């Protein structure tokens, strides 16, 4: 029941966006952070066959069914996380990047990330002065159950709070910043370990960037799990 085929006609030299009818799962195995359960992953494969040609392209990704929510607790000002409805006490580590010269390797990622699991952590925070981490980083966080807090490229020191104060309006090219942010979101958004996008470190991005990011990152109401959506579905 987890195989579906749809016919789509694509005009010449054009892009189309297509949404499959949703696939139903009864009590699927859920993905849990380290220490709360198993990090169950499914293989999702998408292929496109073209009449008269055969298979034209294919795509595969390891996907975990999980729902991550986080809200600000007004009593403490802290952020409360829930995974699959269960509150989770966050035990996490700071992450700058693998190597100062960007000598990035799967083996290094696996070793570093498994080390965090062995330390009984369940979150890694990717600092805004470092990188938007790479798919290989997220792949091992998916496997070992480390939630990821990913910051965009704004830091208090370089963007308005440093000594001397500099770049109070962030980078010079806001459109470029948003283009890079949107492309990064597309690159990483299917990883179950991705728990939270954060505007920057110790600093809110400039108003226009922050508003655009908040808009872009809202989950479409169609996917909100709530009673009214239930009837919609």
């Amino acid at each position, binding site marked *: 029941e*987890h*195989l579906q*085929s*749809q*016919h*789509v006609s*694509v*005009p010449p*030299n*054009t892009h189309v*966006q297509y949404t*499959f009818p*949703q*696939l139903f*799962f009864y*009590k*699927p195995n859920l993905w849990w952070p380290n220490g709360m359960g198993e990090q169950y*992953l*499914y293989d*999702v*494969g*998408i292929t*496109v*066959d073209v*009449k*008269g*040609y055969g*298979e*034209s*392209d*294919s*795509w595969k*990704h390891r*996907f975990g*069914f999980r729902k991550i929510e986080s809200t600000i607790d007004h009593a403490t000002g802290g952020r409360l996380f829930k995974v*699959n409805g269960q509150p989770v006490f966050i035990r996490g580590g700071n992450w700058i990047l693998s190597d*100062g*010269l*960007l*000598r*990035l390797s799967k083996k290094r990622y696996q070793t570093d990330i498994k080390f965090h699991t062995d330390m009984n952590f369940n979150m890694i925070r990717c600092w805004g*002065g470092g*990188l*938007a981490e790479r798919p290989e980083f997220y792949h091992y966080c998916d496997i070992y159950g480390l939630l990821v807090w990913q910051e965009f490229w704004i*830091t208090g*020191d*370089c963007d308005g709070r440093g*000594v001397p104060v*500099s770049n109070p309006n*962030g*980078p010079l090219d806001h459109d470029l*910043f948003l283009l*890079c*942010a949107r*492309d990064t979101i597309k*690159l990483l958004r*299917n990883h179950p370990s991705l728990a939270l996008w954060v505007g920057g470190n110790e600093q809110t991005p400039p108003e226009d960037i922050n508003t655009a990011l908040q808009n872009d990152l809202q989950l479409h109401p169609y*996917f909100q799990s709530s009673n009214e959506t*239930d009837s919609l*579905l």
Partner: protein
Amino acid sequence: MPQQQGKTKLDSGWLAARSTQVQLTGIQLTTTHPPPGISSPWIPAVVPGTVLGTLLKNKLIPDPFYGLENEAIIDIADSGRDYYTFWFFTTFDCALSGNQHVDLKFRAINYSAQVYLNGHKMTLPKGMFRRHSLDITDILHPDGKNLLAVIVYPPDHPGKIPPEGGQGGDHEIGKDVAAQYVEGWDWMTPIRDRNTGIWDEVSIYVTGPVKIGDPHLVSSFFDNYKRVYLHATVDLENKSAWVAECTLNIQVTTELDGNIFLV
């Protein structure tokens, strides 16, 4: 024999040279005067990687993370941008059949670049955190042997490290969309080339007439996680000149213990 579809990484056989030591143009490098191999000024290059990564691999600089060795490496603020503006060169085989198409993909470069393939010039715009995809179907070499040269430029605002150091140096790097630690922080020494280079994977990606782009998977949960839906949205691009009648398939499988697959 049609080219194998899907991704082929270009991560070996790269050469590099400092731009100021190469008098040829990108067009000449990828047509009449390709580098003759490892001979000055061309050195073996580490791709994906940065300029310093390649220089370190060739022992042309000391390891910046040992002792005070980083002080022995000239900073871009003192050397000027050209000193860390580098050419990267490689060749690859790719011969398409019938209705195949091919993209040249850079998952990330820092900070901007010009790409030359078989004498054709293309631009990779600025930004450290963006993917680039170039349709090279029509500029492949007929004999399948392709020459690729990329000149990579440092960030626009590499900044200057004040004598007292400090978090983010003089903060100039914050004007660009790039990693900011490279000007140094309380835990980190400045990176002399500001991580200039082809720092993430390069690949060629072969498809038929229709290509899948950036699928988006979302799950929604009901009845206390008993009833779950998987929603999938894909971009499709028809690169051919006629209507493509497609069958789109989505399949979700899981590995059970012992490699028994449940579909």
